């Protein structure tokens, strides 16, 4: 936190987030009515998003597997980072080979995280199909990747930060754009 007060604007409220997650959930149920799917959340907040969608979808479906992905070792910018990111490891307790996977992340920005996640998934096997679900798409893509399930799309500048806060780890709920502060 810097001394000068950062400019923080709420983009999605608690209620908005809940609505977006509900919509993503029903789209997934509709599209995958006849085959088992696996939800894979990208650390850290993608895991929470995947869990929340899972909680909704699993009321109707019992054939959904869950996994988590830590892309630290697949980043393309390890050389440029000041500190080496800690690794929490990935956990994919189902066979990736031939599976239908939905990847979850909180914010879609340059697309490089998803690129890394795709590389990692392929190292576990050859999925039949991979889809992408994100809560917020803030634009500014640097690789050709686009979401299949989207909560909220918006235009941002690269100088802004998009902050997603979830009760589970942040103790509050909401999506904000912030200028002059990082998490």
């Amino acid at each position: 936190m810097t001394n000068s007060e950062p400019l923080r604007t709420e983009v999605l409220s608690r209620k908005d987030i809940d609505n977006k997650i509900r919509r993503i959930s029903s789209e997934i149920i509709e599209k995958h009515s006849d085959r088992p799917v696996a939800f894979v959340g990208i650390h850290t907040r993608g895991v929470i998003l995947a869990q929340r969608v899972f909680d909704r979808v699993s009321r109707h479906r019992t054939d959904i597997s869950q996994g988590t992905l830590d892309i630290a070792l697949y980043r393309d910018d390890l050389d440029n980072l000041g500190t080496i990111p800690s690794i929490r490891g990935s956990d994919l307790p189902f066979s990736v080979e031939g599976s239908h996977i939905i990847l979850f992340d909180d914010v879609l920005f340059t697309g490089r995280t998803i690129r890394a996640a795709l590389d990692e998934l392929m190292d576990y096997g050859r999925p039949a199909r991979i889809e992408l679900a994100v809560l917020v798409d803030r634009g500014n893509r640097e690789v050709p990747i686009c979401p299949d399930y989207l909560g909220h799309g918006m235009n941002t500048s690269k100088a802004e930060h998009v902050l997603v806060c979830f009760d589970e780890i942040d103790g509050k709920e909401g999506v904000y754009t912030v200028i002059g502060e990082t998490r």
Partner: protein
Amino acid sequence: MITEPNPSPVHSRKDLLDIESLSAEEINHLLETAKPFKELFTRSVKKVPALRGKTVLNLFFEPSTRTRASFEIAAKRLSADVTNLAVSQSSVVKGESVLDTVDTMQSMKVDYLVVRHGAAGIPNQIAKHSPASVINAGDGNHAHPTQALLDAFTIKEAMGDFSGRKILIAGDILHSRVARSVSICANKLGMEVGIFGPPTLIPHGHPDYFHTFNSFEHALEWEPEVIYLLRLQLERQSAHFFPSLREYHQVFGMTRERFELVSRKGIYIMHPGPVNRGVELTDEVLTYDRSLINRQVENGIAARMAVLYWLQPGIPSPTIEEKAET
């Protein structure tokens, strides 16, 4: 499936030269990092791209197959390119000095140098001289830090924690860089350390925190939870420190009788390998369900991956003085 926020990262270093200069926090960080690396071994592709495009040179001035292979596999599973340089094939025999050799390697733009040398302190000298990250893979009687890390990882995996646990290190303590690094590491992690061996092979002036014993039976009464048998380095000892191998086994080795007691108590057995059967231990020990010896080998790769991932070539290494302030 709730995840914790990213814990504050422990800063990288340039080199890993010994255990002494690592903090308990840094050791624990490396052990935590080794865990996800070990999980990779069950995947169909056991490789991650973290060190893609980097070059690791194994510079071994002393023969080694296991440690060298372990480093090589660790580096390759991180996607680094690996070159092995063994002394007999190199120009060292033609009279080139160690630092000249390193200079030559430097022109080849190597990022990591894994060094083993018969003389203590050589890796430190190379580290001062070279912008590459230097990993000490054993220098004389001084240190073997990655061995200590893989052992700590193995103990943690078997027992869950370190605090107050007792480890007995038995054998040739005097000549053993493994004993030195393992005992310092165990102590930093909060374990109690006992040492036992022929009186001629126990160093004078060992640290106060070591418990010492005058017989194996006496040491077992101390109730260690891990017994770490050191390899008798038959190739290294010129002087005679004990009468015969047979007598060494009877007095200082894991005999059948002692093993019976040890297995009844469920004490873990470790050994840095390769074992001298019938000297440090008997054949039964190798099939004992609480023998961690094979797991040590497997964990060596994960621990060395964690070290390679953690070190950063080219960054200034904190000096001892700076370290003392923090």
